[in-house]
């Protein structure tokens, strides 16, 4: 790469051409509370490598990571076991350092892995075609809604309030630019699953799609077949955002009427990574194949008749038809998709089922022990809502003293769930951990 200098004179020229007096003025939108103004803690003299390493370890020890803490925090990002095969294979430099590795002449390994990823996503979701992945669960969902708006020519998007609040924010951002409108329907208070009456009230023939999450943000399992039926009766498409781990035990949305399945792929072998990079799952029924955003890898044969893999359907891709595109996604999360493929290949069908069963059994054990505090009645998968006797903040502070990372404060997103806590229980949590949690809460 060429070295492009950035001298004081260059900077002054750029600043004067855009009419800004200093570089700091470019960052006025960043709240001062998150800016580091005091950098006196950086030593005057350079450290040796050994001293530097010590300093870095001291800093990283402030993180509540590692296995010292048990986590009951979920809400879209989960602490699942990552088999060592995942890091071993994704860490190989052929995969790890490659930039846009899509040239079929030199990248058969990467292209094969993406093709495998797409095939496995289709299998677990029950859909016909999956793309090479998107940025995360939120953008995948918003892209699905754009597809529906584009396909149906209708502007209304009906989404359950029990879909991840952050996903709904992203959805509104996308809709705002595209001139479509987002309407929400409620969940049944005290139950937690979709309020079909409210949904039916909001469904008209002007609706492009109905969106739900499975399981939903407050942990409950939705009756997908019924919601699909309601959507289809008004000519709306049906979009389901899934936790892929739940597909080890729940019925596949593709078998229950979903036209598009999206999801956050982080539980499939990715660390929580402070919120990213994550993996957007996106799969459709055959009818929508050519409307699917992003990249797709296809199987073909070379001039000697040997099987090979290439990017396919590129003519419809957004960078070619830019002015007509309804999506501007021209990339994917190849390394994260690779991690998901290795995870799924390592776990296999029975492994994924076992993870899902452990989540279900352990969270049900916890629910039984905490039955007096439960807020919602609907069946759940690995998350559930409780209302402790003190505020969530107080409870979490107390739990942290016992090396427990507590649950999510739902009052931040749902006024009616003030002082309620979302508890996530994965296979990583042991029975003793649950017993400790129960003891601390009672």
């Amino acid at each position, binding site marked *: 790469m060429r070295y492009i200098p950035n001298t004081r004179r260059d900077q002054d020229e750029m600043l004067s051409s855009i009419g800004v007096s200093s570089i700091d003025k470019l960052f006025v939108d960043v709240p001062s509370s998150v800016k580091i103004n005091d950098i006196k803690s950086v030593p005057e003299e350079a450290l040796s490598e050994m001293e530097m390493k010590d300093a870095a370890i001291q800093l990283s020890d402030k993180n509540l990571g590692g296995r010292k803490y048990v986590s009951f925090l979920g809400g879209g990002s989960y602490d699942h076991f990552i088999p060592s095969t995942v890091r071993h294979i994704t860490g190989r430099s052929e995969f790890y350092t490659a930039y846009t590795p899509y040239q079929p002449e030199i990248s058969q390994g990467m292209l094969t892995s993406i093709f495998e990823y797409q095939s496995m996503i289709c299998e677990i979701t029950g859909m016909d075609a999956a793309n090479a992945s998107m940025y995360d669960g939120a953008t995948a969902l918003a892209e699905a809604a754009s597809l529906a708006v584009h396909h149906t020519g209708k502007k209304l998007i009906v989404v359950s309030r029990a879909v991840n609040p952050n996903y709904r924010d992203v959805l509104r951002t996308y809709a705002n630019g595209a001139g479509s409108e987002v309407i929400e329907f409620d969940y049944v208070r005290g139950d937690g699953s979709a309020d079909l009456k409210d949904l039916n009230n909001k469904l008209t023939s002007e609706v492009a799609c109905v969106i739900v999450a499975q399981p939903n943000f407050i942990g409950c399992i939705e009756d997908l077949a019924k919601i699909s039926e309601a959507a289809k009766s008004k000519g709306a498409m049906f979009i389901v955002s899934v936790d892929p781990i739940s597909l080890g035990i729940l019925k596949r949305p593709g078998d229950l009427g979903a036209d598009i399945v999206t999801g956050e792929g982080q539980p499939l072998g990715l660390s929580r990574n402070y919120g990213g990079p994550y993996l957007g799952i996106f799969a459709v029924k055959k009818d929508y194949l*050519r409307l699917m955003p992003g990249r797709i890898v296809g199987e073909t044969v070379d001039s000697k008749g040997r099987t090979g893999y290439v990017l396919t359907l590129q*003519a*419809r891709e957004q960078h*070619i*038809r830019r002015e*007509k595109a309804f999506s501007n996604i021209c990339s994917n999360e190849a390394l994260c998709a690779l991690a998901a493929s290795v995870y799924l290949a390592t776990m296999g069908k029975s492994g994924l089922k076992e993870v899902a069963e452990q989540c279900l059994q352990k969270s049900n054990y916890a629910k039984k022990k905490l039955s007096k505090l439960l807020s919602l009645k609907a069946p759940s998968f690995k998350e559930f809502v409780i209302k402790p006797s003190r505020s969530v903040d107080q409870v979490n502070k107390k739990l942290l003293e016992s090396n427990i990372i507590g649950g999510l404060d739902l009052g931040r997103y749902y006024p009616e769930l003030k002082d309620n806590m979302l508890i996530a229980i994965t296979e990583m949590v042991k029975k003793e951990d649950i017993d400790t949690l129960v003891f601390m809460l009672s």
Partner: protein
Amino acid sequence: MYPADLKYSKEHEWVKADGNIATIGITTHAQDELGDIVYVELPKVGTKFSAMKEFGVVESVKTVSTLYCPVSGEVTEVNPSLSSKPETVNSDPHGEGWMIRIKMTDPSELNGLLSAQDYEALIKK
């Protein structure tokens, strides 16, 4: 090469009028420029278009192109064989490769389109 009983648009569609029904497709020149056609996205019967509005998309191995409706009207028929055999547009663009039939609201719009001779002159430029 370009039948005299058809009218042509500058965007390389052809129109064959039969009473107030117009059959629409793309020209030999257009399919030749596109190369092997792999997919044709067409509107539903009953959709209404005004003249020169986008009615669909044709996709070849090398590009994707917008289809424009040369005359105003309502779609009465869509060529059902193109979904499984889009290559018909390459092999017989002015015949079996037709795309939609439209009930015209203003057949006088045909007068604004090109004759075979004018169209041939256009593509020679």
